[in-house]
């Protein structure tokens, strides 16, 4: 608990002390910003205050409960998987697989998304325009049946009893939901996990140190050259991956106009009709409008170095190949059931038009993307597994 307290003072203390609560001094340069609950006391310099859900105000106790639940295999029906199984801390909270596998062995059609800065997402999942809160999102892996992820459906009481009868959780739930006689329900589980997820804020990468903290030397010369390319009209990366979170689809307390954006980036063009594979059609699955075929949310690029493989279906293995994909302006699949030239997908974003890079320029862009890796975030003990099952990245032990 103390580690969490050291990061952000509790509600009552922040109201009483007005932002003077932090005593460990390791974030001295952070601006003091608070939400209605007073929680986001210490944000990375230059970062906006997240929106806080009115029905799920943050408290340290709720975050601590959420951290335990997030890392606890008892969260899955057969006690084989935790949230962290697909969102591993060593991989910036992704899982390293092209597509994920649920607790009962079912294949998920999508790649597990990194949780870096999820609190700033305008919407959640790869292409769900209606999923706007972390609390609502957390219920999907819990209860999803097609495919089964954690397998809560019809097994809710059994899973909740595991926590209800564990002294550790009795205390954690009591602290998180004070005054409630029976806080052991799925909604409160989801709220606690959402609370923990919303604290996973990454804003201390070499890029951030250079951009927001006045330390220009934090980025290498190669990364700086790559930055120029990234923000050039030649590559056009920033149209979809622009702004402080390297994603157009952001939300925070200053955002009053919805920024939900989805794009087709030319991965497929089955039979030349623009189709994507049946299991992964993006926004189209919600609207059935042709123009929405293959449209997915552009995710943040923060810690992207650690979240391979890439794309909504994990179908590109490395950052180099991602650059090759965008360089060509779409992917050519020469044969097989998915054959087609994604570059000619009629629903592709008009901003993906291809470019050519020299070998050195390509390395520079990769260096820039690597400058978005935030070791302070990845090695932060406040985000670590309290049970010690899920290791931090090996870099953190050096």
């Amino acid at each position, binding site marked *: 608990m103390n580690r969490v307290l050291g990061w952000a003072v509790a509600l009552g203390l922040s109201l009483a002390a007005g932002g003077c609560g932090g005593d460990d001094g390791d974030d001295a340069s952070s601006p003091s910003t608070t939400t209605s609950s007073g929680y986001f006391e210490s944000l990375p310099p230059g970062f906006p205050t997240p929106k806080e859900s009115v029905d799920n105000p943050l408290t340290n106790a709720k975050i601590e409960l959420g951290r335990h639940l997030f890392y606890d295999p008892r969260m899955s029906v057969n006690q084989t998987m935790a949230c962290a199984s697909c969102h591993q801390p060593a991989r910036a909270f992704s899982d390293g697989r092209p597509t994920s596998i649920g607790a009962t062995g079912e294949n998920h059609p999508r790649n597990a998304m990194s949780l870096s800065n999820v609190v700033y997402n305008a919407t959640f999942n790869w292409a769900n325009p209606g999923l706007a809160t972390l609390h609502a999102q957390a219920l999907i892996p819990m209860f999803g049946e097609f495919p089964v992820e954690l397998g809560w459906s019809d097994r809710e009481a059994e899973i909740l009893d595991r926590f209800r009868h564990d002294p550790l959780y009795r205390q954690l739930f009591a602290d998180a939901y004070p005054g409630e006689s029976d806080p052991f329900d799925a909604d409160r589980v989801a709220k606690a996990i959402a609370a923990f997820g919303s604290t996973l804020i990454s804003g201390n990468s070499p890029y951030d140190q250079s951009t927001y903290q006045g330390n220009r030397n934090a980025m290498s010369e190669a990364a700086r050259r790559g930055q120029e390319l990234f923000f050039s009209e030649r590559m056009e990366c920033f149209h979809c991956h622009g702004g402080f979170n390297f994603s157009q689809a952001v939300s925070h307390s200053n955002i009053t106009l*919805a920024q939900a954006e989805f794009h087709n980036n030319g991965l497929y063009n089955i039979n030349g009709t623009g189709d994507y594979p049946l299991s992964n059609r993006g926004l189209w699955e919600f609207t059935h409008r042709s123009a929405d075929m293959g449209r997915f949310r552009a995710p943040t690029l923060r810690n992207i170095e650690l979240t391979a493989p890439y794309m909504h279906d994990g179908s590109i293995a490395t950052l180099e190949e991602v650059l090759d994909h965008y360089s060509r302006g779409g992917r050519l699949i020469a044969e097989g059931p998915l054959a087609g030239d994604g570059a000619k997908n009629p629903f592709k974003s008009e*901003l993906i038009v291809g470019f050519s890079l020299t070998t050195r320029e390509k390395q520079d862009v990769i260096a820039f993307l690597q400058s978005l890796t935030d070791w302070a975030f990845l090695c932060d003990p406040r985000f670590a597994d309290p049970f010690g099952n899920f290791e931090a990245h090996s870099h953190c032990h050096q």
Partner: protein
Amino acid sequence: MAPPRHPRFSVPTRGVMALSGALALLAGCGGGDDDDGPGQRRAVIEFQGKVNGQDFSCGATYSNVGVGQPGTYQVTDWRFYVHNVELVTVDGARQALELNQDGAWQYQNVALLDLRRDCGNGALPTNAFVAGTIPNDRYTGICFKVGIPYELNHVNDATAPSPLNNSGMLWNWRGGRKFIRIDGMGAPGDVDRATAFHIHLGSTQCPGSDPNAPPSAACGYPNIAEFCLDKFDVDQDTIVMDIGTALEASNVAFNTPDTASGCMSANSDPECIPIMPRLNLDFTYIAGADTTPEQYPKTVPQRLFSVGNHE
């Protein structure tokens, strides 16, 4: 004659901003002129998007656009900022419209117009209006600038107030925002000829070594133009922005290889030569290192914006 009276703008703290935004929204819902002050009236100016006289509809394809073949053009995004909106009295005096600080579309003297309506990017809010208050008088004209003033154009998107944080309008910190964003496709549906062709207007040659820092000095080409329309009755008329006029000398099915798609304001982009002057801007084309810059003065009179009628 009295000089134009400009509204006094303050830069409130975020909390106050949110509060005032909420109050403005409340006031906007409630109607009534209680807050307009003595001698003040409300004014709401509607903008309409058109392509060669036809109403803009997101995703629609228009014909006879530009000078190339087949001349078809599909438009999928249409947003732009305006600032310093002024009404002009019969005797030519200008009066600033004091914009409602609604916490969403308008901040200080800047407003974002978003004409997309149902562009397939999910349920996006759209806005075709600039709303504010102005002293009672008889006005017969209107002037406004397209873009964002320098002082507000290069602020950090992470902490900027709405609508300056509209992520789709971000360029980068040094370059500021896109002033106009028209996304489109020439020869749509033709697999061999389909060409992405956009108009992204913004400031260029903003000095500085870091794209993620404010420019070290004013931009070489601010690319902010003022538009004045006569015979404009704020209670009767609309303002039409016809992008067909900006593209009238372009081949929207061709883009010079290795340059931005269409015209993104770059001084080295040949596609900007016929377009920038039609955005009421003098354009300097610089082909390369050892070439003499070529000057392309703005087209007079401008035809990008015109007076239209409520439909």
